[in-house]
């Protein structure tokens, strides 16, 4: 939990008729935090961002920015600025005029205004391009102009609505690095909306994963990837092998479950865990399974057959059939020992670490803040 909340969202709901775009969402985002709202399209992440910006008014609940209630405050009086998905560069103005747009209302003296505009352009590495016309800019440059135009206002919170989705892969990765260092340099709160889990993992201090207008989990990238609370969160953040298990014993801090082929596993007991009739789902990430070569031995082994193989350059994705398991296991192997040359149907042994399993809640509404 952040020490000083910059944004407090308290029981915010947004209904469109009977459709719940946001369903009783509560959240705190700290000052100086890089926070991501992650989820599939229609999960409510954009509605939440637009409510913070002031473009959408919640049906119920309260939004506070830096302690001030802002729920009904119009967008032009909030200490937030936004980078729009399509950047919304004013087409009739050049780069300098775009960046200076919001400053005009502050009635600064000309020299001060020019200094702030050129500082903002330096910040996004567009130095000297202030006379460039809007339609002469590349996608990456448009995005930088949108960033500069927002940052020049010195907002308390910068809101980014899928800012990288229109860029090609190479440029997107480059902009991710820049966005992260820019946020560290200016030190203000960034709230990023994205459906790209890698983008959220790479950029954020914390991530909120949303489904169906609700927040399923809020945590650091590492925690949310390694300790997802629900099946949907685990699934959305990457590959996961799901296994059905039976609850055998329950203690205050941990639980034991019995699985078909992995035997008895002891798991950390998540907050608010409530099993339904003794059946639970556990998961293990594909990269936590490892092939054993030749006479290599491991404390926990399993025998299987290669059912499918997909070559990804630096790694190979394998599908391993194991007798007694309903679903084959997926795993990711580096190609150092020849995983990319394993024939289909080959018998293999794999090693696993029982500590890598996580206990998952089925109900996506079960895990609440």
């Amino acid at each position, binding site marked *: 939990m952040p020490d000083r909340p910059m944004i407090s969202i308290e029981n915010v709901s947004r209904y469109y008729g009977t459709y719940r775009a946001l369903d009783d969402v509560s959240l705190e985002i700290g000052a100086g935090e890089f926070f991501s709202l992650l989820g599939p399209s229609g999960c409510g992440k954009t509605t939440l961002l637009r409510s913070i910006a002031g473009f959408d008014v919640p049906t119920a609940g309260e939004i506070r920015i830096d302690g001030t209630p802002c729920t009904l405050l119009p967008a032009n009086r909030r200490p937030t600025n*936004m980078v729009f998905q399509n*950047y*919304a*560069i004013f087409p009739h103005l050049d780069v300098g005029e775009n960046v200076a*747009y919001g400053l005009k209302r502050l009635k600064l003296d000309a020299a001060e205004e020019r200094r702030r505009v050129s500082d903002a352009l330096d910040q996004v590495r567009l130095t000297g391009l202030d006379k460039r016309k*809007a339609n002469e800019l590349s996608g990456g440059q448009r995005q930088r102009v949108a960033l500069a135009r927002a940052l020049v206002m010195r907002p308390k919170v910068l809101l980014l609505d899928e800012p990288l989705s229109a860029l090609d892969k190479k440029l997107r990765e480059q902009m991710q690095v820049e966005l992260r260092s820019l946020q560290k340099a200016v030190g203000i709160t960034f709230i990023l909306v994205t459906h790209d889990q890698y983008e959220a993992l790479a950029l954020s201090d914390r991530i909120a994963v949303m489904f169906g207008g609700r927040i399923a989990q809020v945590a650091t990238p590492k925690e949310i990837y390694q300790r997802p609370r629900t099946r949907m969160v685990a699934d959305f953040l990457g590959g996961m092998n799901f296994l059905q298990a039976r609850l055998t014993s329950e203690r205050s801090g941990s639980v034991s479950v019995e699985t078909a082929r992995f035997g008895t596993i002891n798991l950390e007991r998540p907050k608010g865990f409530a099993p339904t009739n003794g059946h639970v789902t556990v998961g293990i990430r594909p990269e936590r399974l490892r092939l054993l070569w030749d006479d290599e031995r491991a404390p926990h082994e399993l025998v299987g057959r290669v059912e499918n193989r997909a070559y990804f350059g630096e790694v190979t994705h394998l599908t391993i059939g194991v007798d007694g398991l309903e679903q084959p296991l997926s795993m990711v192997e580096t190609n150092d020992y020849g995983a990319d040359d394993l024939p289909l149907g080959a018998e293999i042994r794999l090693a696993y670490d029982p500590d890598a399993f996580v206990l998952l809640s089925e109900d996506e509404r079960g895990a609440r803040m």
Partner: protein
Amino acid sequence: MLLHRLRLLPFLPAYVAVYFLFLYLPILLLPVFSFNDAATTTLPLAGFTTKWYASLWGNTVLLQAARNSLIVGVCVALISTILGICAARAITRYRFRGQRPATGLIMAPLFLPEIIVAVSLLMIVLQMGLELSLVTVILGQVVFCIPYSMSVLVSGFEGFDRSLEEASYDLGETAIGTFRRVTLPVVAPAIVSSLLVTFTISLDEFILAFFLSGTEPTLPVYIWGQLRFAAKLPGVLALGSLMILASVVLLTVAEVMRRRAERRTQATLVP
């Protein structure tokens, strides 16, 4: 492929030539005869003169008609463009019940027989006891110009990205300031284009003006009156040539502006 097929149809270029000849030769003859030093429009040409153009300047009735046309044109352009802005904005920005029928009804005057509309307007005006005047001409022509104005404006507004206005609010601007600093400049070329198109249509419009103008003729009505006198024909040709020139210039500028508006609004959509 296409070239191949065209070669198989050798009469196509000839057809196109005849088509354009038929369409534009009569119009080209107008300026040709307007510079001809003879009172009749017969070949061979008698020699070059600009006296017919000079005679236009001394003709007070004609100048009065030109003034009337100017007044009507400016009023029609302003009113129909203002109403067109409202309609185009409603159609491109909002989704509402009856949107399609409403659009259809606004566009309908394009397809209605103008003379019937003119007669019914005349009947209503007389029933209401109003005097025929330039005001009645303006009202009648506005009905016919709104569809044109709306088409031009819709194409300009269509690409207008709502997030531009949101970006402006987000940067602290008020609703009025946003309209002045973003909305208006971005759609200005489309508005200018609409003004020019409707002015041109009004300038050339005859039927409504003929029925509704009373004792104050516009230029086309004046020309119609002059056609009874054979001696006035060269002067009419000179006047007609000027009107064609004005129309071509105005519509060209309008089209250039419309394309600029389209480019401008689309520029925001390309990532």
